[in-house]
């Protein structure tokens, strides 16, 4: 955790880049109404205090790129996000990834960490762990 002043929480999440270098990305969580209301989550540049520019966002497979792309509401493009959930019938189509009040932030952090470290699987596919 980087900092927390309700309702805003900043967290850094570990990542593996396509060249297998270890890195991390910062995220801004807006938690008004939590847990009844889904968090809104942005990939963030904490030093500059703004959204992370598209050119510096995570790279890799389409799944990774899609999750962190620029889109209309600027949040992380996942069904658990406050803006993503109601978008395009995602709540109906992806119940396993949708937010509900019985979840906690661990659910989101596990999903983010899973996406951000997925590049490590390319190495595993070449050489057995």
């Amino acid at each position, binding site marked *: 955790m980087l900092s927390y002043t309700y309702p805003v929480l900043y967290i850094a999440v570990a990542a593996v880049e396509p060249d297998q270098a270890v890195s991390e990305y910062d995220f801004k969580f807006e938690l008004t109404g939590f847990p009844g209301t889904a968090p809104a989550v942005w990939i963030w540049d904490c030093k500059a205090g703004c959204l992370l520019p598209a050119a510096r966002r995570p790279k890799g497979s389409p799944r990774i790129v899609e999750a962190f792309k620029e889109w209309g509401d600027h949040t992380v493009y996942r069904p658990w996000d406050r803006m993503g959930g109601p978008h395009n019938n995602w709540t109906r189509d992806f119940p396993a*990834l949708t937010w509900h009040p019985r979840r906690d932030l661990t659910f989101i952090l596990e999903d983010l960490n899973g996406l951000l470290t997925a590049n490590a699987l390319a190495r595993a596919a070449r050489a057995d762990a």
Partner: protein
Amino acid sequence: MARKGGFPAEEALLFVEDGDEPLDLAVLVDERTGERIHHVHRARQIEVTVFYMAGEKSKTFRPAARVQQVLDWAVGPKGFKIDPSIAPEMELAIHGQTTPLPKNAHIGRFVHHPEHKLALDLIRGVVPNGGLP
């Protein structure tokens, strides 16, 4: 922990996350392991079978192995030899289900006494995007 799990303490085995052997509780635990994540389980090892397309492969893991460790094996040369360009898309789910398991979860979490086996499916993770109806 055993009391919390509802079983006798003498049946409990304590593992360090991704560790090879259970810790010997008769000796002083190394201070360096104090910051590691541990897992208590009654099974010493778990036989994991992963299904993918028409095939299946099995390997024994410790209960404290993370799902990530099983996934690394499943996509690798001794597993299903998944193309490295596709491998980052892969996930593991309980056999017959479609919800991906958290990669940092210990596999022992999904195996309840007296079971010592875990059946998983290697699946391609969903990519939610704006093109869906």
